[in-house]
């Protein structure tokens, strides 16, 4: 496989990982919000 091919696969993996990371951050923010709302009651 040429280096160009590896570059593409690396980029795709990085995009998948970054997408997962952002997704987890958003879930964490939502959970923190729900926990704070629960404590406030």
């Amino acid at each position, binding site marked *: 496989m040429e280096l160009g091919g590896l570059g593409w696969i690396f980029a795709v993996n990085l995009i998948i*990982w970054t997408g997962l*990371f952002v997704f987890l951050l958003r879930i964490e923010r939502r959970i923190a919000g729900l926990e704070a709302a629960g404590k406030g009651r």
Partner: protein
Amino acid sequence: MTRTISLGLRALLWLVMSTCIWGAFFYAWSDPAFVGQSSRILFFHVPMAWTSFVAYFAAAVWSARYLWGGRQMRHDRAAAAAVECGVLFGVLATVTGSLWARIEWGAYWNWDPRQTSIVVVLLFYGAYLALRSAMADREIRARISSVYALIALVVTPFFYFIVPRITESLHPEPVLNKEAKLDVDPRMFQVLIASALTYSILFFWIHNLRARTQALADAREDEPS
């Protein structure tokens, strides 16, 4: 922990994982014993398999804490979340392993001892999840599934670490071979170890989110209607 430190640690995780991905493709050599560049999938497959074992081990620890640490439900929730994560990483390891097997051995599934043993463990923990879903009473569910998770940890290391070393397999030699010697190129080893540690940290983050979600669900269930 302040929000800034928390975000900083997560940004560091993103950076370290990205570096591991870069290392998998541009730092480590492609093993000439394998077809083309296919050996690079091992930098994802092996850490996923390792992380699934870490998750199962963590489930047993939290199960023990539940049984002998005051029967606190948060320990049971943590154990269940760990098993869910372990199954997730186990499935990912099986899928990536099958993709690699297609390239190397010509078929996605070969009944290779290592392929088969990871699926046996997946079925074992799948049964744990099925057992939990069949019991409505939280305390009975927690007690029975804690005992199950502890028994499972007796079985799991056998399938993960013993079976690959006592059977003839199509699989490449493990990183620590039968003579307990490191049998891998140094650069490959560095990327493997870094990836395994990073995936393990990722597991603890996902686990934390899952356990907190379950705690919120339990709290909502307990609210007077």
